[in-house]
């Protein structure tokens, strides 16, 4: 009996120790290390912990570095539970190689499947399975303008292309820098897509990027878009090459420039600087809303991964896709949830435009990254950078653009 008691007690201790280890855990790899983005991600982490999960944070400072770490670990067989990516075709190779786990059950259980924004759901579905959990939808073709400068010169609101050119001329006549441009290829590419959707129209945009129609690219309508882009060069200031996007946004805040054509994260800059004097428009001309987004993918864990990790992954997907989490994540950023039934209490005038555009499928467009591989997107960005620098003629631009699209994978 004297020997039996310690044996029974230690057996009980060991068994309870095993039972306590069953909490689902997830290691999350991301690049949201600053300000509003980190706060937003903190909301997801909080919700996950409230649902009983253990959040293991793995933050890497830059998007490229984070993606590189994630891909390397997947190849090496020690993947994180979840990895941040942009919604789009960055995942094609991974899915083809069988490296990602589908999250169909979590999408159903959280109700996301039934309420997702159509274009976003299509972007994360392959072979009938859902491979990514989009946390938001951000708009990429916003036009922000400094209302005070516009009033000063009597410029019309640039909601049509005629008004846009009138406004630019009036601003330039008064010696004001009309366009705040950060002439880096990725920013110029967003400006080009904004012009393609707004001036070329919803259908031309889809013909070019979704249908890969070379005739559409060689059409006079497309050429008109390229000419408009070239004409916009005359309204920038000389310091635009290699300027960062937030410096360009700051030019609006300080009144040094009047218009910035950029994504909705510029609005977060204005809000962070407590500046309210901006007007916002989705596109100019055609009101289509170009949508991109952030999402998490869930690499297939190795067979000897613990139960906690496997449970943790599915729980995390479910939490990320739930309506409440999507609302609390997006209230800190200037983007909107990826499901149509997630309601905000307070909606500012810009988000209101975004939400009403997203409710109408004929007004939404997927970002180029959702339709093309990063390689093609990068080639087009490079080309648009050359166009802006004036080192390629309009004819050569059209030819090389058509080539890139035609031979895209």
């Amino acid at each position, binding site marked *: 009996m004297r020997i039996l008691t310690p044996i029974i007690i230690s057996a009980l201790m060991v068994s309870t120790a095993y039972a306590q280890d069953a909490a689902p855990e997830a290691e999350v790899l991301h690049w949201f290390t600053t300000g509003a983005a980190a706060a937003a991600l903190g909301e997801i982490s909080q919700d996950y912990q409230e649902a009983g999960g253990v959040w293991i944070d793995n933050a890497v400072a830059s998007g*490229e570095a984070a*993606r*590189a770490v994630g*891909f390397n670990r*997947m*190849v090496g067989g020690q993947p994180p539970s979840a990895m941040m990516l942009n919604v789009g075709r*960055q995942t094609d*190779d*991974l899915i083809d*190689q069988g*490296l990602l786990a589908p999250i169909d059950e979590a999408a159903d259980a959280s109700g996301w499947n039934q309420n997702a924004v159509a274009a976003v759901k299509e972007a994360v579905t392959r072979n009938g399975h859902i491979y990514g959990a989009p946390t938001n939808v951000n708009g990429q073709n916003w036009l922000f303008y400094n209302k005070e400068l516009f009033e000063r010169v009597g410029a019309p609101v640039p909601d049509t292309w005629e008004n846009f050119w009138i406004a630019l001329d009036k601003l330039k006549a008064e010696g004001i820098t009309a366009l705040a441009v950060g*002439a*880096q*290829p990725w920013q110029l590419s967003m400006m080009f897509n904004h012009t393609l959707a707004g001036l070329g129209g919803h259908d031309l945009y889809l013909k070019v990027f979704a249908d890969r129609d070379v005739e559409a690219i060689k059409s006079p309508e497309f050429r008109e878009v390229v000419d408009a882009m070239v004409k916009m060069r005359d309204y920038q*200031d*000389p*310091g*635009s*090459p*290699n300027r960062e996007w937030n410096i360009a946004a700051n030019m609006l805040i300080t009144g040094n420039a009047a218009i910035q054509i950029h994504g909705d994260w510029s609005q977060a800059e204005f809000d962070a600087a407590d500046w309210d004097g901006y007007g916002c428009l989705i596109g100019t001309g055609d009101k289509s809303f170009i949508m991109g987004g952030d999402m998490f993918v869930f690499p297939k864990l190795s067979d000897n991964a613990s139960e906690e990790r496997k449970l943790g992954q599915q729980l995390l997907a479910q939490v990320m896709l739930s309506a409440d989490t999507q609302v609390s994540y997006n209230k800190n950023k200037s983007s909107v949830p990826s499901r149509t039934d997630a309601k905000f209490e307070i909606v500012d005038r810009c988000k209101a435009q975004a939400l009403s555009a997203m409710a109408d499928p004929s007004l939404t467009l997927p970002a180029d990254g959702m339709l093309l*591989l*990063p*390689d093609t*997107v*990068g*080639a087009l960005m*490079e080309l648009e*950078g*050359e166009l*802006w*620098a*004036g*080192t*390629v003629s309009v004819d050569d631009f059209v030819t090389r653009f058509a080539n890139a699209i035609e031979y895209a994978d």
Partner: protein
Amino acid sequence: MASSLTRPSYFRNIASNLAAIPAWLVLLVAYGASMGWTIWISFTSSRVMPVNEFVGLQQYERLWGELAWTTALTNIFIYSVLSIAGSLILGFLLAVAIDQRIRAEGVFRTIFLYPYAMSLIVTGLAWKWIMDPTLGLGKVTRDFGMPWLSFDWLVKPDTAIYVVIAAAIWQTSGFVMAILLAGLRGIDGDLMKAARLDGIPLIRFYLYIVIPELRALIVAAAVLLTIGAAKVYDLVVALTGGGPGLATEVPARFIMIRLFLRQSIGQAAAASTIMLLIVLLIALPWVYFQYVRTPNSRGEKS
């Protein structure tokens, strides 16, 4: 006596040969094997993940059709030649100037060597702000009422590369100065006196007597500069981001973008292999002339 002549040389110093084994392993495994693997990947269709699907020369065909690649090669050639020549010449002039036994020699040496202590990212950013037409020198001349004196070389595609070269020369000429100053100090002071006695002008003295004496050091400095020039990346990224357009694109940046951003590992591997070939093409003849050829008449080997 006879036995030591017939014994093979690598058994003579077993201890030191054993000690060199880790270095050999690093060389063969870390450098050799990873270079071999990269060359292999350049013959596959790898995109974001390395895959072993052999596609022959497809990546190379695509590579040579890319304007960005041919521009990058042209740019790196212009950049290397001008920045190395500029650093050597400016470094030599600075060394000669300091060697004149001026008063505050330590202060000047520090000032000229200081840029070398800065990272290239910091150098790039500083030059970017200085050469920004709206912020830097251009703003200063405008505020002083001289708008005709514009400094827009950085934002024009034709002249941006020269700003990058200038920043590089600014960074490395102090380093060349330090090396050559050491060499100048090693030159016999009597040579200078003898030259003056003979009435040889100073320029000819430096050109025909001093520079040949410093030959070994100049070559050493040139080698180090060449290594830095071939792999220039952070300076370009910070200063121009490769732009405007493709004006300052360089191979290292080309490769990095395809490796990470554009998910084309095959392309990056192909470009890296070409860079390796170019470097070998330049380095091998030099190595031959320096180390393999029989010693010259002065009995020196290198």
